């Protein structure tokens, strides 16, 4: 129980800090520290993402960063893909899914390093919070 809370807080802080989605932390956290299987970890991560994305959306909408119509279309039209993705995940063995997820994590890590290196101006932003500080999702949201 405490482990779940700790994963949530750590995942959230890092997501807000670096603009990396929570899911990429929730899933391995649930597998490594809680002992869930890969399928259960992914499913549980998805539910945990919802409140984070809702609050993030309200904040971002307040800054005028949400194009609501487009977001609604993407969200609603995702349903077929979602159903197929979940079905595919459940058709794969836990081991295969875990390996695929590990590769995804490496990909996200590479992307993170790349984005970091291509944005040297953000290295030490002590007082420019107005322009940048409120964007928790500069690279890969949730």
């Amino acid at each position: 129980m405490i482990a779940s809370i700790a994963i949530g807080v750590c995942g959230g802080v890092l997501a807000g800090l670096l603009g990396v989605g929570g899911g990429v932390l929730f899933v391995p956290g649930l597998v490594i520290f809680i002992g869930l299987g890969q399928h259960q970890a992914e499913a549980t991560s998805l539910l945990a993402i919802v409140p984070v994305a809702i609050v993030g959306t309200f904040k971002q909408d307040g800054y005028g960063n949400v194009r609501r119509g487009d977001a609604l279309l993407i969200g609603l039209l995702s349903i077929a893909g979602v159903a197929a993705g979940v079905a595919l995940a459940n058709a794969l063995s836990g081991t295969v899914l875990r390996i695929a997820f590990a590769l995804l994590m490496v990909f996200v890590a590479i992307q993170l390093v790349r984005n970091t290196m291509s944005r040297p101006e953000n290295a030490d932003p002590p007082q420019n919070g107005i322009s940048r500080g409120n964007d928790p999702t500069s690279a890969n949201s949730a």
Partner: protein
Amino acid sequence: MSTDRPLVLKRERSLELAAIGTMAGLFSGLFGVGGGTVIVPLLVLWLGYGPREASGTSLAAIVFIAAFAAAIQGAYGNVHVLDAVLMGVPAVAGVLIGTRLQQRLPTRAISLLFAAVLVASAVELLAQ
């Protein structure tokens, strides 16, 4: 910033949004993540979004995507609701804290550190 595109492009635009939704949905359902990794770059590449609006719009779409995916995974009996709540609610506070700290911490060093943590976790996953 503005979305003043000719009407003839509207249909194509809807198709692009549908394609983005479908791909993000597949990705999210398969990996248990939100899908921002897919949505953000496609909004930038296909629809000319700036990075900030791409992130914000992606987050809003993810509310639906993650909710759909969690519901379907729930039908498979895979969702541990208590763990999700214990993780998701504190994560909201975490994000708000992280967003504030962003202005005060050397995010570049943290990014690199975090990338290392991701790789280490990936290795740990593979070793399980």
